């Protein structure tokens, strides 16, 4: 088994033991190459779920020739079971802005945007006040950069980066074909860096800690730490920053209620891990990755209800532009209901599993592609619960 870590709490994101202004002012005086190198050394990968190396994203966008570039903070946190970005924006907004400013310097952007999900509009007034203050700090530091907050309106798919650009451009939030990638063709067709809220704070904090220090945490594939959103059957639900690389067994010992049957890692788009695999499953890119969502289910829960809930979610949130996802999500939902009612035989579940494979291969974006994750991991591991 690969190298694993014991569960360890970390305090990088929320720490009050630093002044963002000092970090920012120092970073603004560093060379772009040094900042990118430090990010690459740190091994930081995007914390929204997909896990693209942040240093590479910044480097590629910096290399593009363009009259205009943008940096965007993806605060469209909609994955079921995820709520850490809300807490980060509430508690340490200046670090988020700071990370954006450092990114703007590296890539050469004058404008940044925060795309805040509509469900978090109650954060807007305070966030705007803090932002005004931050702009004054930028003026003091003589750095020409402005951030604007825009809000979403209740569409999960807009967390997908190209759908988010479409939404910002005043269109339906339908994902684009890729390539081209945002680093060359993003918001308004210009080179764009788009990072998750948490990633931006880590980027800023790596300017302070140094890439090597961050790299000491975690494993080869999953460097550093991560903020987890823990919910479900746990006596201590909430937000925890933990070193990456622990096993699920380790996680459940800390957060479970003693009767944990399974954990859904990574939300509805993630994987369900049953008890028998807790020991040999690492939470991280080498095992099961997560944007933070950790939903714990104990033995009193019906896994049929869980997958039914996820399928209702996907069926509604599918943007509808590509057929495999639009029709696939509907048919999966109807299919599990039919098996449960006894209208279809058990073998029909295999047909549905084949359908998720097709969706994985042919859907245009991550939504349709990832339905297979939760569907296969729940149906395979809890088949009897799908029937009885």
């Amino acid at each position, binding site marked *: 088994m690969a190298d694993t870590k014991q569960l360890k709490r970390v305090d990088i994101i929320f720490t009050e033991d630093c002044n963002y202004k000092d970090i920012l002012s120092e970073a603004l005086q560093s060379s772009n190459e040094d900042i990118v190198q430090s990010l690459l050394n740190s091994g930081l990968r995007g914390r929204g779920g997909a896990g693209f190396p942040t240093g590479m994203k910044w480097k590629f966008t910096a290399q593009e020739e363009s009259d205009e570039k943008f940096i965007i903070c993806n605060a469209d946190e*909609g994955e079921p079971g995820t709520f850490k970005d809300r807490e980060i924006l509430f508690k340490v907004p200046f670090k988020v802005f700071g990370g954006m400013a450092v990114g703007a310097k590296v890539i050469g952007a004058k404008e940044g945007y925060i795309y805040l999900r509509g*469900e978090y509009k109650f954060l807007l007034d305070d966030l705007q006040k803090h932002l005004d203050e931050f702009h004054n700090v930028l003026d003091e530091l003589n750095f020409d950069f402005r951030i604007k907050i825009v809000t979403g309106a209740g569409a999960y798919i807009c967390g997908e980066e190209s759908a988010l650009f479409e939404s910002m451009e*005043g*269109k339906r939030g339908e994902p684009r074909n890729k390539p081209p990638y945002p680093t060359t063709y993003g918001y308004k067709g210009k080179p764009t860096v788009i990072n998750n809220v948490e990633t931006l704070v880590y980027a800023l904090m790596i300017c302070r800690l140094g890439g090597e220090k961050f790299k000491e945490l975690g494993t080869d594939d999953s460097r550093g730490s991560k903020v987890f959103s823990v*919910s479900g059957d746990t006596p201590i*639900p909430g937000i925890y920053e933990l070193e990456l690389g622990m096993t699920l067994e380790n996680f459940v010992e800390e957060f479970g209620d003693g009767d944990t049957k399974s954990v859904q890692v990574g939300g509805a788009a993630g994987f369900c891990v049953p008890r028998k695999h807790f020991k040999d499953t690492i939470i991280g890119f080498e095992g099961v990755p997560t944007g933070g969502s950790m939903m714990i289910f104990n033995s009193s829960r019906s896994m049929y209800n869980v997958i039914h809930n996820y399928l209702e979610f996907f069926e*509604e949130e599918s943007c509808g532009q590509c057929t495999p996802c639009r029709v696939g999500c509907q048919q999966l939902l109807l299919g599990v209901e039919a098996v449960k009612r006894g209208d279809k035989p058990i073998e029909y579940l295999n047909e549905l599993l084949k359908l998720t494979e097709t969706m994985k291969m042919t859907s245009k974006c991550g939504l349709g592609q990832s339905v297979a994750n939760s569907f296969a991991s729940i149906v395979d591991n809890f088949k009897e619960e799908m029937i009885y």
Partner: protein
Amino acid sequence: MSNTQQMVKELVEKHGRERTNLMAILQGVVDQQNHLDDQAIIEIAREMDLSAAQVYGTASFYTFLDIKPRGEYVIRLCRTITCDMKGKREILHTLENLLKVNIGETTPDNKFTLLETNCLGWCHKGPAMLINNKAYTELTPEKVKEIITEIKHKS
């Protein structure tokens, strides 16, 4: 100039005529009159030099950009599994009984609309709901009664 024309004109002047401001303008209309009616959509299209179909296409994509009439207070109860596990169904029954409406309906006095919505990001404090932009968490039937009564007495 009709009220709608006036409202749209002000919003367009505030945010700008480029299509990148369309979301903000649509949200502005919903904030003021709780939904986007045909008149507003046509007026936005005219002001922004877009077709009404383009404006409608964008508006109809987003759950929070309601194109159906809504009450003054739009209740969106989180229906994600984690809120469900914490007693969401009891909260839903309480709301249905208090307001005498089902999901998707508006009270006859146009005060409340009851809706369900996907994950609100309060899974550690479920069940949760939004009323307009405000979040209410760790709901119990008693708490819901207090919240609704308070709003009813407001005006």
